[in-house]
């Protein structure tokens, strides 16, 4: 019997879908929240040798409880290594961290992300937190996975500010020329997985239990018909959720 993802919380659905993209023996740069949760789920199921790296400098940890900051006790506690932020960003710039996971307030068709301002920069409607390490990860990581709750306000034609650059033609050319990371490869929502094409996001498939219409509801982009019917979540991965009870509780 197929695992029923509709029973999961929104965050848990994003986390399991994203976890599928994290292969064993890779290293990934993770932020707090769903990115960290997704990596935990991967590690607890199909990717025991996945290395999780936090920008605070913590490496090799499995948080017991949800952390509020990448420097929080539950990240530091029981970790294999605590180095400094300089070192982990250096590894990132050297192309030695395989995957990055990011979320933001807005995403456009080419994976440009905004976490800086809603409205104009000089006269913001909402001034947000700024890049943090998001710009750096988006520029440097070989493979970027973007995580977004399915909320139509977040999916836009043009982000108000490109905090973290995506894969539009101009950026893609500069990425190649200046030896940056190649940018976004997938967009994970709580309803579907999308992949980056030359023309922007295209639907891979809806999460099992979700229809095509649900997966693409209110998206301002032409994401195509999908290349797979649906994505099912393996038992191992599905069952791993029980180790992160807060992920289920938190919808």
């Amino acid at each position, binding site marked *: 019997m197929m695992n029923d993802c509709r029973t999961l919380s929104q965050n848990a659905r994003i986390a399991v879908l994203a976890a599928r993209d994290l292969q064993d023996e890779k290293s990934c740069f993770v932020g707090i929240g769903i990115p960290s949760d997704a990596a935990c789920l991967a590690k607890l199921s199909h990717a025991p040798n996945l290395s999780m790296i936090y920008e605070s400098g913590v490496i090799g940890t499995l948080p017991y409880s949800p952390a509020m900051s990448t420097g929080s*006790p539950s990240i*530091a506690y029981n970790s294999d290594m605590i180095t400094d932020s300089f070192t982990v960003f250096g590894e990132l710039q050297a192309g030695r961290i395989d995957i990055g996971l990011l979320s933001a307030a807005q995403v456009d068709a080419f994976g440009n992300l905004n976490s800086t301002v809603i409205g104009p920069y000089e006269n913001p409607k909402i001034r947000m937190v*700024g890049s943090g390490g998001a710009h*750096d990860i988006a520029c440097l990581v070989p493979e970027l996975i973007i995580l977004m709750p399915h909320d139509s306000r977040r999916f836009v034609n043009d982000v108000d500010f490109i905090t973290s650059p995506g894969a539009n033609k101009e950026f893609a050319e500069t990425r190649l020329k200046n030896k940056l990371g190649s940018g976004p490869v997938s967009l994970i929502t709580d309803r579907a997985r999308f992949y980056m094409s030359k023309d922007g996001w295209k639907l891979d498939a809806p999460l099992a239990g979700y229809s095509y219409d649900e997966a693409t509801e209110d998206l301002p982009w032409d994401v195509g018909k999908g290349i797979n019917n649906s994505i099912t979540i393996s038992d191992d991965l599905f069952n791993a959720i029980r180790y992160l009870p807060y992920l289920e509780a938190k919808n």
Partner: protein
Amino acid sequence: MDNNFKISKKTKIVSLESAITDNIKPGNIVFLGGFGHAIPFYSSHEIIRQNIKDLTICRSGADILFDQMIASGIVSKVIFGYIGNPGVGLSHSFRKAVKDHKILLEEWTNYSLILRLHAGRMGLPFIPSKILQIGDMPDNIKYMKTIKCPYTDIDMSAIPALVPDVAVIHAQQADEFGNIQMWGVDGDTIEGALASNKIIVSVERIVDNSEIKKFPDRTVIPAHRVSAVVELPWGAYPSYVTDFYSRDDKHYIEYDKISRDPDLLNYYIDEWIRNIQSIEEYMKLIGKKNLKELQNGMCGLKSNDE
């Protein structure tokens, strides 16, 4: 050499009041340490109490300490990569100050801010990097130049050095001479301290120099670089200090509500900052039960004894 030979050296231990008065002047660029961990709340509050104005404050990822400094009206500029209440939401005082044009921004990213400090620490006017070549760049950092790598011909950002006038950091322990030991999450704290011209350090405890020498690898700043040492147990509350006490997540969550409301925030700043005369009063405000719980919490004293 004679093992028992004692050299009489100068002490760096001073009162918090004079540590701040003597080393921080209006208009200074001040680096505030702590990346989630060991944020120098109490010593930075003294800057607010002394009302030292027109400050530029800087670090990569900043939390509610920056919010408090901004709310107190002593900050004219922030140089930063992130300002928020991690895991909770926005920095409301920052948000308002930006909206009301009451503050100048120099907005980098976490890595570029760290590289600015790294260049400062290394005595370089700039350091190249691959970041900040694509995406939107605020006008306030458009003075940054681009250079061509002479070997690969690729364009790189010339990240300009940042040399703060003073760093204020919190650490686990120091000896009277100013050898500073810190462990657990550092983030960009040591980078920022070493980049700065002066370094003020508050610590959970002063220890004998012989304790320092047991783990010389834990010394993160050498005595000769330190301007002032102040013993301030609980000086990093509501953030945490590994092997001392855990983070008071609840305080951060409540601060979100408080900082949305100007009246509540004023009351908070009076209660938690302006009216506080000593670290003992601060501890009283935290409350005995809470102190104990935090000592027993993750990364606290008890957690370490397991």
